């Protein structure tokens, strides 16, 4: 079995199983910790609307905070969009998703994917530098914060190298790219990449908690 065989075969399978099981384990474990029911009489509100409203409203900072967090807000959006486009609309990726999910979707031209991947990489490196230098971020950061950046950064870089056939044999580069994705998938449920899953329940519960008091979250 070659490295590529392993990376695209059992390696990927195991990584996916750990990813799925780990995410479910952590999500269900946190959600199912008991919470005392709030017995206070709420103001007139619709809990579902308040919860869903918070999912939307927390996508942008309130006016009073805009200037203070502008950099993080903008880089956050650029980073996520560039990442999603690179991951979800690259033709070979779609073939992979099709093999797992059973269906595919249209892809974007390779040039666009290359540009978005480079943007994503550049923004992530910028955010890494900020984390290591900004007084608050540097102070509060722990290993998870850095590991989570590196396990995403490496698949991006190896992906770009494999795409550009730079730095080695294509098969080797592809195998390394796949292995780095597998490392990311395995790390996902253990570290803060998990935020991708937790965003919805966290914002939703904030929306309902504020909503019952008549406050927009």
């Amino acid at each position, binding site marked *: 079995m070659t490295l590529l065989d392993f990376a695209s075969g059992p390696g990927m399978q195991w990584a996916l199983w750990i990813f799925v099981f780990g995410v479910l384990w952590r999500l269900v474990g946190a959600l199912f*910790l008991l919470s005392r029911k709030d017995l206070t009489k709420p103001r007139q509100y619709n809990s579902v609307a308040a919860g869903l409203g918070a999912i939307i409203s927390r996508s942008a900072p309130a006016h*009073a905070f805009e200037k203070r967090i502008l950099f*993080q807000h903008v880089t956050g959006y650029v980073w996520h969009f560039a990442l999603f486009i690179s991951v979800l609309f690259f033709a070979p990726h779609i073939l992979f998703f099709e093999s797992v999910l059973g269906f595919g979707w249209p892809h974007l031209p390779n040039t666009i994917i290359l540009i978005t991947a480079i943007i994503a990489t550049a923004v992530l490196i910028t955010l890494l530098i900020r984390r290591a230098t900004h007084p*608050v*971020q540097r*102070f509060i950061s722990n290993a998870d914060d850095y590991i989570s950046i590196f396990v995403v950064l490496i698949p991006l870089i190896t992906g770009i190298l494999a795409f550009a056939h730079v730095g080695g044999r294509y098969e080797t580069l592809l195998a390394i790219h796949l292995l780095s994705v597998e490392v990311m998938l395995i790390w996902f449920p253990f570290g803060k990449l998990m935020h991708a899953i937790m965003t919805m329940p966290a914002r939703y519960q904030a929306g309902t908690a504020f909503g019952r008091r008549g406050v927009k979250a």
Partner: protein
Amino acid sequence: MNVEAMSLQDFRGKLEQLSEGIPGQDMSDEERVRRAKRAFMQKLNGHRAVDLDSCLQCGMCAEACHFYEATQNERYAPVYKYRPLRRFYRREMSPMRWFYRPFTRDITAADLKEWQHLVYDACTGCGRCDMICPMGIKISAAIRVVRHGLAAAGYVPPEMRVLRNEQRDQNTLFGVGAEQLKALVEKLGAQGISVPLDREQADVMLLTTAVEVLLFPDAFAATARILNKSGADWTIRSDVFEAANVGIITGDDPTMSLAIRRIVDKAKACGVKTVLMPESGHAYQTLRWEGATEMGGALPFETLSIPEFISGEVQAGRLNLKAQSNGASVTYHDPCRLSRKGGVMQQPRDVLAALGLDVRETPSNQRENYCCGGGCGEYVLSGAADLRQKAFEIKRREFEETGADAVVTGCANCRINLLIGAENSGWETPVTSLVETVAANLAD
């Protein structure tokens, strides 16, 4: 009306003497950690778990914190203030604890002692950080759990401990009990302001605070006049009148429950339909938004804040206000526990507008309002005076941007802190209360 009050200077002196000669709470380090962990475990529910599992450690919350903004001290980042809870969660309760445990340092008594400064001196629990978090994490709720842990571990700051013990054991605060309230009621009676004290049955039970009795008796008199004018069937009880709850401030659950129960039991005995909270943000938050849950079932009365009550009475036509036409302007300081934590934001503005005042908004207002700097009892902590003053300066800049003639607020705690800050910095814009502003403009 003008009732003789304790001067701000004397009250500040009283605050400085609060903790004199108070011994620390003796306990072994092991016992402190054990108790803190037990408190964390009791308070760490599914909501907090989702919050702790969602944090990106982006640090944006620091940008919402007045103490961080005023000092640029990274230790004041709200995310850091709940670090002991996060550590505990990761080691003991997280679904991934088997993985985190070897990599997560256990909390120690030294940590708890260190966090006393971070969660009492350097956090007023105002919850502004809750409004900035892109994940919607209720950061202030997590910090409150840390306060619970510290309270259990005997690390409540001495000034707050004195007040907690006084409320728990004597049902008084700052030495204000039935006698002092009765004396105030008598003085008001002599000025023609009737206060129906100790009625057995009434529709409305008014509460007040020791601070109001001592420092702001005019606010109490104003509330009485408003109630009388609106024709409310009301009373205030000399045996249970204290609205403040040092239990919730300190993180001491038994005291919090006890203080709530006293009010609830008395309200039930008097058959009241409404408990009217005085100008105290945390008192309103406690009874209105925690009372029923704490008592284990719905309460047989509604809890109203002063702005809600006045606004309701004006709308119902039971209270008529004189609209001024002199172009006077005011800015309203939102007490955090009335506004983003209580949902009372529009009512005080409606009332001020009904008075014909030009209501000007600070750049950050309502749900994003800056804390006064010493909210939720933080103003009693002598060691945090410098920090409070720095935070007050942010508030002062916000007020100055409005160019308003006066600041009006709906919380005596905020008012004290703003007055002290103003006194320290020689700022002369008047800081007054909503009730007094309304009572000065009651129409026939």
